[in-house]
């Protein structure tokens, strides 16, 4: 059977987890609840990668998303959260149109995926292990790898410059 090591029940659990948490991010009234939902959602995505036998990606997901990105967002929430009183509206005026649009897009793309002939899939999931992946990263994809480090450096400098106190700016 193609995709022989596909576990339907584990897939259903992970999918339900991820989707429910994503809905929690979108629908929560409090920003902090959204953030907690987001952390749980990213954790679920890490399990999804593990189910796909992409172990390195799963570990990276936990390190980068659950670790770093969540902390940055939590700090931003703590540095900014004051809204109360008059800001009781959580959705903007286009919320209904956005819901219809998102639902239509989801239905259309899902139907297309199911209807399209995706072609033969492998007997079992095959992802490169850590050894193969690192040799790929430092051999075939070494230029994008170095460019990403430049992008991260630029983002770091940019964040420091942007978030600096106003008085220090000339």
């Amino acid at each position, binding site marked *: 059977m193609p995709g022989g090591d596909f576990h339907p029940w584990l897939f259903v659990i992970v999918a339900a987890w991820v989707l429910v948490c994503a809905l929690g991010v979108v629908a929560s009234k409090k920003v902090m609840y959204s953030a907690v939902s987001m952390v749980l959602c990213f954790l679920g995505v890490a399990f999804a990668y593990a189910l796909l036998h*992409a172990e390195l990606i799963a570990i990276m997901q936990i390190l980068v998303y659950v670790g770093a990105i969540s902390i940055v967002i939590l700090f931003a929430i703590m540095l900014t959260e004051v809204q109360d009183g008059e*800001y009781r509206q959580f959705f903007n005026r286009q919320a209904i149109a956005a819901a219809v649009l*998102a639902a239509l897009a989801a239905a259309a793309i899902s139907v297309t995926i199911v209807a399209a002939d995706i072609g033969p899939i492998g007997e079992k999931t095959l992802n490169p292990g850590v050894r193969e992946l690192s040799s790929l990263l430092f051999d075939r994809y070494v230029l994008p790898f170095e460019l990403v480090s430049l992008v991260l450096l630029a983002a770091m400098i940019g964040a420091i410059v*942007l978030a600096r106190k106003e008085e220090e700016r000339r």
Partner: protein
Amino acid sequence: MNPLEWWLVLAVLLFCIGAYGVLARRNVIVVVMSLEIMLSAVNIALVAIASFRTGVPGGGTVFALFIMALAAAEVTVGMAIVIANYRHRRTVQTDQYDELKG
């Protein structure tokens, strides 16, 4: 439906939930979180295709790693902009950002 299609449908649903959050929420931090969910959905699709189809070995996995790094850069700059903007306007509501100048 084969397993790859199930994974891709999951990615599509996750992407559309994120898109709804980006379009409909007023709090800019929640908008950024929804954006991260959209990026995760794309990553799931990439890893799923990479694990079920034999193309360039490891291509999709490496691509997913790069997307993660760029998402980290994006959220860093995004949160810095949110904090800088908050200093100016004391708000994180998107419809209060009605002038794009200092």
